[in-house]
């Protein structure tokens, strides 16, 4: 488990031969329009959820998206707790915070690595993913699994933290903190990154508000929303932390917001681990009466919104799941139109959609014939070439 061989081997991403998800229309070197078709990954989870009992649903919804796997169950159980008027024990609120902030760190580092890869900084990819491992180890020790934690239940947490686990998590945070500072310094001071990412893929504040953007995508465009502060849940109103925002809405700002949030996540975690109160982690919930409930949490990508209707039965009558990318992906249209083709991969990546969705991107020249100019691998190559050109000029 502790191999430390560091071989920068530059993976090239597998491409999908047929464009499925994102189609970009261009004139010359500039993007003029974008379309997205999302039926490829649609699994109909809302329907699956309705055929399950209240306790089974968290295991279904944590598989909505692998990287937000703690956020969806938490939003769901909060919606149900609203209907059933459950008082969640204090200790469980802290456990929820710990798991969700660990998820935020590993998700942002994953993103940082992929973003580096798209612009040709393969070492960044390797380093960022290498430093995800301590985070995933911490999650595995606390919940039993690297991803898909199955820890949030209606009324509290399924598993508790022992003092040894608390110590283990603290030591993993010690491991991550130094490299994270290095990433932040690199991002803020590297002249090539500034030239490559500033004023690229700008999402204006007006568009961010009109299109209902959320998460770092909105916060980088001067829209200071964060569910953890606006409608506090878990233990976020019991610890000190700040919401990170930037002004310009370009890719550079999105990088900065995410890296600074990762640092804040460590700050929240240290307080939560230190102040973890004694007591039970699970309240007893006998039944869920008829009613409606809203549960929303700040996932790494933005607000995850769940709406649950109960008719007093064994499971949800209706369960609406809105992942943050559903609101953020349409903003890609606003931020990529007018951009050179070389910038589309990093612009899309800056919204942090699903990795699988990103790799299904293609440039289509002719809207009528659908004649394809370039596929995803070509777009990544163009993006890296641009970085090289900038490097040579310096």
């Amino acid at each position, binding site marked *: 488990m502790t191999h430390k*061989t560091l071989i920068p081997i530059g993976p090239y991403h597998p491409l999908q*031969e047929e464009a499925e998800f994102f189609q970009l229309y261009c004139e010359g070197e500039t993007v003029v329009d974008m379309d997205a078709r999302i039926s490829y990954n649609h699994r*109909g989870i809302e329907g699956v959820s309705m055929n399950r009992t209240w306790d089974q649903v968290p295991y279904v919804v944590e598989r909505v998206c*692998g990287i937000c796997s703690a956020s969806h169950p938490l939003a769901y159980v909060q919606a149900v707790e609203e209907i059933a008027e459950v008082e969640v024990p204090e200790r469980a609120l802290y456990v929820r915070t710990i798991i969700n902030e660990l998820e935020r760190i590993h998700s942002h580092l*994953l993103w940082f690595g992929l973003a580096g890869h798209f612009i040709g900084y393969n070492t960044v990819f390797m380093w960022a993913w290498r430093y995800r491992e301590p985070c995933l180890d911490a999650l595995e020790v606390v919940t039993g699994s690297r991803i898909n934690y199955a820890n949030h239940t209606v009324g509290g947490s399924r598993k508790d933290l022992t003092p040894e686990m608390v110590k283990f998590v603290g030591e993993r945070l010690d491991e991550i903190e130094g490299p994270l500072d290095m990433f932040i310094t690199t991002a803020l001071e590297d002249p090539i990154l500034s030239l490559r990412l500033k004023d690229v893929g700008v999402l204006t504040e007006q568009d961010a508000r009109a299109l209902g953007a959320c998460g770092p995508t909105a916060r980088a465009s001067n829209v200071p929303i964060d569910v953890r502060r606006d409608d506090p849940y878990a233990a976020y109103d019991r610890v000190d932390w700040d919401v990170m925002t930037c002004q310009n809405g370009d890719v550079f700002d999105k990088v900065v917001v995410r890296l600074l949030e990762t640092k804040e996540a460590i700050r929240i975690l240290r307080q939560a681990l230190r102040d973890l109160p004694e007591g039970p982690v699970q309240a007893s919930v006998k039944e869920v009466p008829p009613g409606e409930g809203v549960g929303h949490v700040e996932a790494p990508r933005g607000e995850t919104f769940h709406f649950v209707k109960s008719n007093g039965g064994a499971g949800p009558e209706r369960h609406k799941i809105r992942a943050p990318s559903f609101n953020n992906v349409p903003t890609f249209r606003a931020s990529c139109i007018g951009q050179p083709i070389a910038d589309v991969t990093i612009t899309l990546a800056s919204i942090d959609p699903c990795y*699988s969705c990103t790799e299904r991107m293609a440039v289509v020249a002719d809207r009528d014939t659908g004649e394809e100019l370039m596929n995803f691998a070509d777009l990544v190559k163009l993006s890296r070439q641009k970085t090289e050109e900038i490097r040579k000029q310096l």
Partner: protein
Amino acid sequence: MSVLDKVKLWGLKKSPWVYHVNTGACNNCDIEVLELLTPRFDVERLGVLLACSPRHADALLVTGICTRQARPRLQEIYRQTAKPCLVVCLGACACTAGIFHDAWHFAGPVDEVIREVDPDAKIIYIPGCPPKPEAMIAGIAKALQDL
């Protein structure tokens, strides 16, 4: 088996190039596949590389439940993959659809979709949700030994 076939098989076993196909997955398995490339697991030391196109691939790493939209595309990718090839059903979704067996967009499972195109296809299963990277490496290594 002709000499050429034996050489092909030797090449496949010594350095399998894998092509990753997501047919409607939550991304967990897909991210764990990328994990295999990173320093902790470093699968390139075993000769495994991610291929850019199915035509260069020795193995298809298939994740996801095979949604209705993905089904014809998966079959097309299988046809294009150089033979001989191995189809790896990665994760509970690809093996059996797992919790999505009653989803309205489910059009798999993956092995039936592939066998519709090629009844003699070589398919292996690596269950888990997601399978740990160690399990993936063990599964592929075991399959290669048995070829």
